[in-house]
């Protein structure tokens, strides 16, 4: 038996969504978010346990999960997930270069996590904040009107944090 991954707190949070929908399957995305927010990934064992709660086959949950490309499954990503926009409005104002500066400063490629586990840098498609291009969403914080200075300062600040 694999060790249980979902804590009582996660199970309670998932069950709290049940009354909102006429089917259990509709709780799939909320459940995946609940687990991902806490573990920073959704391992296969969590998929199995979510499926049990939602009265689904694990394959059904995995099928949905794999569609989004949003939920990491192999190992936890960094404490902060930084999404740098590469779509048109940001690209016209230097968004792709911002991503380059950040990756260079952090010594990683897009999609990778710094060795200290503090920061994952990913490119994102349009963040819907084109009035502040180029921009980045790091955790819940929108970083506006990025420059090379702001971007590298952000990476320095993130990687200076003690685990």
């Amino acid at each position, binding site marked *: 038996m694999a060790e249980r991954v979902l804590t009582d707190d996660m199970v309670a949070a998932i069950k709290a969504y049940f009354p909102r929908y006429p089917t259990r399957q509709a709780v799939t995305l909320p459940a995946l978010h609940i687990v991902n927010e806490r573990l920073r990934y959704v391992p296969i064992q969590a998929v199995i346990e979510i499926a049990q709660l939602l009265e689904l086959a694990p394959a059904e949950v995995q099928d949905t999960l794999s569609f989004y490309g949003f939920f990491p499954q192999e190992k936890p990503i960094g404490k902060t997930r930084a999404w740098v926009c590469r779509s048109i409005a940001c690209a016209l104002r230097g968004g792709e270069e911002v991503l380059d500066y950040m990756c260079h400063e952090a010594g990683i*490629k897009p999609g990778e996590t710094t060795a200290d586990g503090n920061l994952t840098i990913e490119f994102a498609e349009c963040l819907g*904040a084109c009035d502040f291009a180029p921009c980045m969403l790091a955790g819940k914080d929108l970083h506006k009107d990025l420059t090379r200075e702001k971007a590298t300062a952000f990476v320095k600040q993130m990687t200076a944090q003690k685990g």
Partner: protein
Amino acid sequence: MFQPVLLANIDKPNSYTLKVYESTGGYSALKKTLREMKPVDVVEMVKSSGLRGRGGAGFPCGLKWSFLPKDHPGPIYMCINADESEPGTFNNRVLMELDPHQVIEGIIIGSYATRASTAYIYVRYEFPLSYERLQAAIDECYAAGYLGKNILGTEFSLDVFLHRGAAAYICGEETGLIESLEGKRAWPRIKPPFPAVEGAFRKPTVVNNIETMACVTQIARRGADWFKSIGVPADPKNPRDAGSYGPKLYCLSGHVNKPGCYEAPLGITCRQLIDEYGGGVWKGRKAKAVVPGGISMGFLSANELDTTLDFEGPGKVGCLGLGTAAVVVIDDQTSMVDVLYNCCRFMSHESCGQCTPCREGTSWSTKILERIRSGRGKMEDIDLLLEVANSMGIIPGTTICGLSDGAAWPVKNAINKFRPEFEEYIRSGRKSVTPAQELMMAH
């Protein structure tokens, strides 16, 4: 200048709270509607206002509501599309962050009109502040008796729930949204049946956009005639023109001095928006091209800037339509080859993969442009791009949803309007792939 209505309160301190919203007349329209009007009267009011959906397709809102089956035992669902992901678009974010109650009042009125008992707001993951502000506003509404059982002492009850997406553009397609809400892969459904007949959880469903709901609030408050007095009337000679009525939120970004969300009557010209609202093209340059309504709509060339930004205007110059009214300005120092590559890469990334012409077409367009941008393009690549673009989408009849038409349009417009630039680029054999882009290709 036109006085903003939808954005009238966004600069007030704590504009997102119930207290401030009520102090500006908020929820008075809801009270009047629930006490004095029958649901069918609300549908008629919205129909006669001429309101067309603000999410991109511009379908008449009241007409959409009237497609719901009559005397259905229920439940009927209201789904609010806050998955705003079209590149360049952020008007819904502004409304949700700064005036969420204006949106929720419209949702309650719309749910009353359509007899929906549950409304789900599908909020894209990338909008954490919108999610937070909407949830706080919903909580305030339950406490104030605007949501829940027997709203304002009437027979009408409504629950509103937020449902968070997971960063997939296709969830903005209404049936993709429904599939995602149901906990499945967000693969758009084959239509018919349309959601009004069989939508969320196989029940009759209306899917409406955030700004559309804010318009419903203002129509209920100020009347259908007020709404219809703004904008561009339907052309009597064109039976397919349903008119472009009401105020519209335009998102202006790219190479302008003052990017931002601006409210104006439907039908201002692209040039007016850029010069009068956006302070002109940045760095004293000229515009080479302008995206009129999100990249799916294609491009206006520099000599098409007097195009009116109403539902009919962009189509007259070969664009797909008004779309989300997201206007992205591209200056004369920018290569259209690079711009088109960015658009194709986006669509290739976001195609759900269900339909072969879209999955392969978006991918091959991107690869062809990668080849051109790495200095190895061939002259025949230009017609190859056009051939691919002409074979994908609902318009040629090869795909389930319109993502593919939106992927094809920037290709068609870029090549038809800027062909010499593509030819010159290929002839020169130069490269414009940047180190940053190579970094992303390796990902």
